[in-house]
């Protein structure tokens, strides 16, 4: 299934609920464009909810890393929420758990952003 993203705003935190695959091609491009649009429109607290993302390949991982550095370079924060087991396992074996702030509960995730 192609990647789809729905945006929600809770205070100054933008949550994007993704569903589908983050893979080479449309999925990776969609993630890249979404994060760029958010940064360009001044959103600097971004929470990517991956509850319905059960597949990510090396291109998608690269895009997540790119999103992280894009937001960080704009003095923002990007966090991940609700990882599926497969995405969790991939981030673990690639040691990216040490890079990303991964959250499992939305309320706590929102509170964890710097005020």
């Amino acid at each position, binding site marked *: 299934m192609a990647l789809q993203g729905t945006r929600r705003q809770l205070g100054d935190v933008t949550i994007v609920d993704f569903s589908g695959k983050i893979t*080479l091609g449309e999925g990776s491009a969609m993630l890249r464009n979404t994060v760029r649009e958010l940064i360009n429109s001044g959103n600097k607290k971004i929470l990517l909810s991956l509850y319905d993302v059960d597949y990510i*390949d*090396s291109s998608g991982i*690269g895009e997540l*890393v790119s999103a992280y550095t894009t937001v960080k370079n704009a003095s923002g924060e990007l966090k991940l929420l609700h990882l599926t087991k497969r995405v969790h396992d991939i981030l673990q*074996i*690639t040691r990216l758990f040490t*890079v990303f702030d991964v959250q499992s509960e939305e309320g706590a995730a929102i509170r964890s952003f710097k005020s």
Partner: protein
Amino acid sequence: MAAKTQRIEVMLETLLESVDLAESISMRVAEAAGFPEEEVHKIGMAVREGVINAYNYGNQQDRQKKIMMTVELQPDNMIVRVLDQGKGFELTEIPDPLAEENLLRTSGRGLFLMRAFMDDFRVERGPEGGAHLIMVKKLPQPVSDNGKHKPE
């Protein structure tokens, strides 16, 4: 006596769609070979990464070039080979994606994933100099001559 080896050869175009096609073919073979669902997923993903490598880095998205994929079921192993028409590379030239200084790189994890998801992974030079990726996964149970799993 060993069961007969079965082999599928596919000539893939250097197109994005070939990545999904190769993954799908390898997963169907893995399913038919009796791998459990999670292993089928890992095999599919390793093959996906192999063909992404051929598409992006080997053939550099040149549509004139082809990608040859071979899926072989031997009595004890499933072997997938992916051959491109690029310049080839040595595994030792590839930066370790787990090294602290490489964690924020946006590429370079495909080979690592192939190695992680398969039992054996190596890279050789193809006959025309391209990269020849060889991925091996041990079958869940050896298959006997009549196509049935041998008892443990």
